[in-house]
Structure formats: C-alpha cells, structure tokens
C-alpha cells in the first residue's frame, strides 16, 4: 500500500488520545501517546476512530529530561532484531534531538503499549516497524511542537518563526536546548494537530544507523533475564516428564534435599521444582531427584512413523485453503509418471502436454534454541508480584501470572529484559516458562529465578511443526502453467490457543501461508491448496517465519523441478510464472543479476535460486553451493535481495538478512528433532547442530529502494534459503533432495 500523498497531517483530537505531564524527577517533558484500536485503517485512511480508552499514567513513550537526556520507551522487545535502534530513529525523524543523548528502555507491561494491530503487547510477525511507523513518529512530532511553543513563549515570538536543530530550538541568533525547554513545554496545552514530514524530507529514516545497544552488549553489562539478581534470590530448575503431557506419579526428594545449597523440593503442575542458593545447587539437586512419571497421552510417538502417516494422509483430499478452476480435470493425464526421490540427471525431456509431475517434501520438528535458555524471575510483594523476563508476549504473560496468584492483572508488574534471542519461542501461547516460574514462586518464600537448562529447552516442546507437502502439477504444451495441487499435512499452531478464532473453515492460516497466497500458485489457472490438520500431541509454536519455513521450501523446490522438467532455465521459468507479480519478479531479477546468474559459477559450484514473500516483504536469494568429498553440502555465497518497502535502517535490514540466512541454513543443513517412544532424542548442541562460523557463507544484501508500506525484516530472510540451496544442489549433482535437513541418500 502506498502512503497517501498527504499523509503528513495528524489531527490529534480526532485520531489519538494524547497526554503529557511534568512528572519526571528533576523536571522534564513526558509524552504519552495512545493510538486507539483500528490503527491499520487510521494510518492509511482518514476514518475516525472509536473513542480511545483511558491511558494509564505509565504510558509514556518519550521523556526529555532537563539534563538533555532523551529516553524512548519501547512497546516492543529487543531480541536482536534492532528495534532498540529503529523505534528511536522513528521518534527522531520528527523530534530532531541530539542522537548521542538517546537512551532506551523497555516499557512496562500495560495495555497502553499494545501492538497497534494485535492489541496485546507483543513482538512478533516481523511487524514492529509497520506497527510503529506512525505512532513513534507522532510522538516525536508532538514533543517537537511543544518544545517550539515553549521557546516561542520564552522569546515572545511565534513558534512558526522558530526551527529545530539537533536538540536545540533556534530563532535568529537565539538558541535553547531541548532540556532547558522541557519543563516549560510540559506545562503547555497540547497541539490540536501535528504535521509529519513528507517522505522526501526524511533525514533519519533510510540512513544506515549503528545499534544503540552496542555499549552494554560488548561489555557484559546488558541485562538479560538470566542476569537478574535480587536480594535473597533463589535459583530453581524443574524436572519435567519425559513424554509430553506426562505427570508426576511419585517422587522422593530426600537425595535432592541432601545436596548442599538446595532449599526446597516440591511438586508443581509441570513437574518437580528444585530451588537452591544458586543454579549449581538446584541443578545438582535435580540430578539427585528420583521421580516416577505417569506417561503422557502419546507415549509411543515416533517422528519417522508420524512422517509416513502424514504422507498417507497427503494422498487424500484435505480442507480447501485456496482454489480456482478445475484442478482435478487439469491433472488427469494418461501417462502419469511420478518424479521419484532418486530422480537423476539428465532432466526429464521437455514435457508432452498434460504430463503431471508429483513430488513430496517433508520437514521435521525444530526447536528454536535461542542462545539464552528460557528463564523467568518472580518476586512476590505486598502489592502483588514482580516478574522479570525476556518475553515477546508481555500482556499475555502478565495476565497468566495474575491467574496463577489470583491477582488482578495490574498487580503484576512485568519488567522486560533484553532477550537472548526469541525466534518465536518467547511468544508462548501458554506462557509456559513464565507460568511455571509463578508456580515455583508459590512454593518458596523468597524471590526465585527459574532457569531451563539447554536440555530442558531442546526437549521442552513448542516446536516448529513437522510437515509433509504433496505437490502435483501439469504444464501446458508450451511449458506454461496449467494445474497445481498442493496438499499440506501438519499441525495447527493456533488450535487450542487464544488465537484459535483465526482458524476459518478448518484452515489455520499459519499452516498454508506462503502456499495459498503464492504468486506461483496463482499463475496456474487451475489450482487447489489443501490442508490436513493433524494433532499428534506434540506442542508446537511459531518458529521464525512460521508456515513460510516449510511452504517456501516445498513451493520453490517444486517450481524448480517444473522448470527443469520443462527444460527451461530456472530464472526464465519463474519470470514467466511471475508475470502478474512484478514486484516479486523484480526482486528475483535483482538477486539473479547481482549473483551473475547465467555466467559460469566458480569451478565445482552451482547456483540455485528462490524468491518468497512473507510478512510484507519479498526476499530472493541465490545460493552458490559445492559438495565436498565427504558429500557434505557447503554453501559458499548467498546473494540476497529484499524489497521491504520503506527501509528504516538499512544496517538493520542487512543484519536481519544475514541472520535469517544463518537461521534458515541451520534448518536446511542440520536441524532435526527426532521423537522415539514419545521422547525427544536430541538434547543439546552436540546432537542438535547449529550453523557455526566456518560454515557461514559470504552474504551480499541488496535492498530495493521503495516508498511502499514497510514490511518485516526479522523473518522474511529465512524462508528462501533452504530451497535456494536444494535447487543449487540439484543443479550441481542432479539429485533432488526433498526433505530437510538436506541429506544425500548415500551419506
């Protein structure tokens, strides 16, 4: 969506409720700001909003101190994606303050900091920039307007005759710093409206800007949840059932209690908690604990058998997610010859009309494995309780903690720390690790920090769901698109969650995103995307790029297979399919051009490409791949192009592309969780491999100049890399690898 030509005028009386007060210690200006529900319409249209709810006093987004400090409160969580820098940039685009004075804090959990689309306070879906582009700019514009008015009043001139310059209001030869004006500005009436700059006048948005959280993160000062220290703090670990949904039958605490430093051993709903003076005591106590478990409802789960059952289901029709034309008729052909997983070079000869191609793709369960293991600290107070944790789901967690203690939500004060990675794991639909910490806190009379060990994390569930895709397609006599049928078998992430209302007609949109809305699929006049939602009882969750993490692999691999089967160049074949998706095609062409598509790759290497749209951004990647003598896939170079619309911080977008590629490569080359007899086999980084530095390819990122509505950057870099690598492996070896992680049959 384009920004309206005149998006610059913001009528505050109609469009938002706003509040400021001189409440900061030492005096200063506080700008609180609340954009009411329905912001998506508000930002890009001119409709009047519903009445804004009252704003709690804590709802400040910006504080300007008499000491010249400029403090930005983040409604979203910093988990590596860079919002600690981009949201202050948005404020300063309008505020024009001295960047070196900026300080950043996570906002407390409160409804007023709700996501402008999703209402709850959360970070996810690669939506922070699109959620906040207007809100944080408006905060800056209101503050600047008040500072100009304060200067005008002081000097007896019209504010219109003053201008701002890097933290000063200037009028002729007179200058006043923002800090010196803050207290006076805080006493002024609010402006009836503020003007936002036109995009062509932007000076901050689009400027490569280094991270504001760098100093604390290179000195060890940054406070992650696991670093919280409080007087009298205990540390707890929990013994959990080895099968999902299992329960404690009985336990013997004697040996655990005998471990020096252990203070309490007790049952909680999720297992047996061991609390001690420090982590080592708690961990040793848990090692000594004897627990007899009641198995969960699925004690025989075997991921290999599960995958085969998914393959069987994929033979039958599922619920319709998207359909056009008559795919059943289009796919009927006399000489149906399925592609097999042993398909080898040379490619099939050019198609005879109506030869359907059939292929199945499979992806395993995956753990998020953020570097900071899950943790949460809880302190009970006279007023209620305090919680410290790195979370992507503040108000959901706050509400659930209140439920555990029987408190009002407002009695739970939740402090967001830095997140040592999130990737979706810290946006838990059941607030699993936070609720567990609350239960632990109920069992002790001191503040307590719950820490999950790495083993707890890898085996603790809430995985990227396993998925099988069965694809069938037929091309017309000229190699053009005719029929496409895709059947997806996977678990629903939303079923049983507070977001279950998003499931419509049996379709969980997170299971089919990237397929049902694929421009490739739409190019086939007869197409149908179907879903079988299965429930094997394994807890699943959004994992960086969610459904796109498997749909892109299936769709882009299959398009590549079709290109080769038709005897077409993979780039040319895609260009034809993307004729009606010019923005997608342009990104693909940019990446292909920069990668030297069509020129010979370095000796021993081949290139593969993929393009995929997710979270409002389009990313294309060309992977340059070799296979070493031990038959290991080595990715040497990735050329990445992204169209994310308005790009607030190019440095941040580049970093997110590198990051998404590294994350996706881990899944493409190594990632796999195995379940046997209901238990997770893998446990730590020795058997759940993560991409390491020597395996990181050289990544080049190209950002499309755009004034389109901003899309995301945190997730869209992940989906294309697995198919780009698989397609390169085919180009190099003639072997089509249809399962992740990518492995040769003979290695």
């Amino acid at each position, binding site marked *: 969506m384009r920004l309206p030509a005149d998006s610059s005028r913001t009528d505050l009386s109609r469009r938002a409720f706003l509040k400021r007060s001189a409440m900061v210690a030492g005096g200063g200006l506080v700008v609180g700001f609340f954009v009411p529900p329905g912001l998506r319409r508000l930002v890009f249209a001119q409709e009047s909003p519903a009445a804004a709810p009252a704003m709690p006093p804590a709802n400040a987004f910006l504080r300007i101190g008499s000491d010249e400090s400029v403090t930005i409160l983040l409604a979203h969580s*910093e988990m*590596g*994606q*860079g919002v600690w820098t981009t949201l202050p940039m948005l404020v300063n685009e309008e505020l024009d303050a001295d960047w070196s004075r900026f300080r950043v804090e996570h906002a407390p959990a409160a409804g007023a900091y709700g996501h402008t689309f999703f209402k709850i306070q959360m970070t996810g879906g690669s939506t922070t920039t699109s959620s906040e582009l207007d809100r944080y700019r408006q905060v800056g514009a209101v503050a600047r307007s008040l500072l100009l008015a304060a200067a005008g009043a002081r000097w007896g001139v019209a504010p219109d005759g003053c201008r701002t310059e890097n933290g000063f209001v200037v009028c002729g030869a007179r200058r006043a710093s923002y800090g010196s004006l803050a207290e006076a500005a805080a006493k002024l009436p609010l402006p009836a409206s503020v003007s936002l700059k036109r995009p062509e006048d932007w000076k901050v948005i689009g400027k490569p800007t*280094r*991270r504001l*959280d*760098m*100093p*604390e*993160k*290179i*000195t*060890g*000062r*940054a*406070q*992650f949840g*696991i*670093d919280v*220290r409080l007087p009298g703090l205990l*540390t707890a670990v929990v013994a959990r059932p080895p099968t999902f949904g299992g329960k404690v039958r009985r336990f013997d605490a004697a040996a655990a209690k005998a471990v*020096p*430093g252990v203070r309490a051993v007790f049952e909680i709903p999720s297992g047996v908690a061991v609390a001690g*003076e*420090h*982590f*080592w*005591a708690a961990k*040793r106590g848990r090692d000594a604990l004897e627990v007899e478990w009641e198995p969960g409802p699925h004690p025989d789960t075997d991921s290999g058998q599960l995958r085969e059952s998914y393959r069987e289901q994929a033979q039958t029709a599922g619920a319709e997610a998207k359909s056009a034309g008559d795919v059943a008729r289009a796919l009927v052909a006399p000489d149906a010859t399925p592609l097999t997983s042993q398909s080898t070079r040379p490619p099939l000869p050019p198609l005879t009309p109506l030869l359907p191609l059939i292929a199945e793709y499979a992806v395993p369960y995956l753990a998020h*494995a*953020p*570097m*900071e*293991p899950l943790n949460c600290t809880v302190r009970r107070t006279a007023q209620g309780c305090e919680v410290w944790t790195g979370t992507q789901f503040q108000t959901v967690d706050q509400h659930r903690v209140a439920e555990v203690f029987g408190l009002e939500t407002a009695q739970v004060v939740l402090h967001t720390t*830095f*997140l*040592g*990675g*999130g*990737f979706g794991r810290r946006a838990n639909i059941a607030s699993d690790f936070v609720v567990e910490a609350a239960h632990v806190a109920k069992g002790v009379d001191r503040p307590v920090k719950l820490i999950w*060990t*790495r083993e707890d994390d890898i085996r603790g569930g809430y995985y990227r769901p396993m998925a099988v895709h069965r694809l069938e397609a037929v091309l017309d006599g000229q190699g053009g698109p005719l029929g496409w049928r895709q059947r997806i078998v996977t678990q629903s992430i939303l079923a049983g969650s507070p977001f279950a209302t998003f499931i419509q007609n049996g379709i969980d949109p997170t299971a089919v995103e990237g397929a049902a809305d694929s421009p490739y699929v739409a190019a086939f006049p007869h197409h149908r995307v179907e879903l079988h939602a299965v429930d094997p009882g394994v807890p699943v969750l959004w994992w960086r790029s969610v459904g796109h993490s498997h749909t892109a692999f299936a769709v882009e691999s299959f398009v590549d297979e079709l290109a080769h089967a038709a005897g077409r160049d993979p780039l040319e074949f895609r260009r034809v399919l993307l004729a009606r998706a010019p923005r997608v095609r342009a990104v693909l062409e940019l990446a292909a051009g920069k990668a030297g598509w069509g020129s010979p790759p370095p000796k021993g290497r081949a290139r593969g490409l993929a393009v995929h749209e997710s979270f409002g951004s389009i990313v294309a990647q060309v992977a340059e791949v070799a296979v070493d003598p031990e038959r290991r896939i080595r990715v040497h170079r990735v050329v990445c192009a992204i169209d994310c619309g308005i790009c607030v911080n190019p*440095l941040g977008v580049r*970093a997110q592309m*590198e*990051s998404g*590629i*590294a*994350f996706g490569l881990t899944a493409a080359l190594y990632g796999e969780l195995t379940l046997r007899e209901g238990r997770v086999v893998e446990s*730590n*980084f*020795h058997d759940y491999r*993560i*991409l*390491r*530095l*020597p395996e*990181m390819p*050289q990544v080049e990122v190209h950002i499309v100049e755009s004034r389109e509505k901003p899309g995301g950057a945190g997730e869209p870099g992940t989906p294309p890399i697995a198919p780009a690598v698989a397609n390169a492996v085919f180009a190099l070896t003639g072997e089509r690898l249809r399962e992740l992680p990518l492995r040769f049959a003979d290695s």
Partner: protein
Amino acid sequence: MRLLVNGQKHDVAVPGDMPLLWVLRDVLGLTGTKYGCGMAQCGACTVLVDGSPVRSCVRRAATVAGRAVTTIEGLSPRGDHPVQRAWTELDVVQCGYCQSGQIMAAVALLEAKPKPSDADIDAALAGNICRCGTYQRIRGAVHRAAELMEGA
C-alpha cells in the same frame, strides 16, 4: 578457595565440583559471562585463564584458584579494547547473548596470532555459536581489531 578475577582477589566457599561459570555468575555477580549449554558446545561462557580461552561451564572453579581469570567485565575499563571498538565499528551484535564469549575468544586469538587468516578465525571461533548469525560481521571485526591493535 581464592580466585583472582579481573585483578581482584575473592575468597569463596563453594562446592568442589562447582563450575567457574556459576561461581562467576551466582557468587561473584559477574553476569557478563553466559550460560548456553553447560557442556562446552557453544562458547557463551568463554573466559580467559592466564590469557587462554576456557569454557567456564565445564571448568571446575577449584582448578583455576590463584590463576588470572579475565571475564568480559575485566577486558577494558571503558569498553574500548580494540576488539570492542572493532565490534562497534562493524555493528556486530544482535541479541548480544553470545557476544561476551565471542569477544573473549577473539581476544585470545589475537593475542596468539596478531594477524589471523580466515582459517585462523574459523579455527578459533568455531566453538562459539551465534544463533542470530552475526558470523560474517564477527569475521570482519576480528580482522579490523587486528588492524587497530597493530596501529596501537
């Protein structure tokens, strides 16, 4: 036992099997050194002992008594060690959780090899996982730190 951490002496009474990591974090309050795996697989807990990189999650504190332990907090008083300056220049960090370990491993490498090759960097930092994937900038920043140290 008596530990020498960042130039300061600490007398601590802890279980004999307690890893250095947890003494640093839970007893001395030096939380810059991180727990990631507990089995020397990820490098988040890397500190220097007499200048050499050590995975503190598996090293019993008792074995380093009296030896010079350096953690991220003790690397430089103002956060301006050449490695830290290079990290800032190249905007290396993302979530930041692994970076203490990455930086300590890089410092140890540069002490041993002032002009490391890419292969040297691969070998020295292969044990430090970054889930955010900052590897490309880490590589660049190690080279940059080598330049800064040469010019110092």
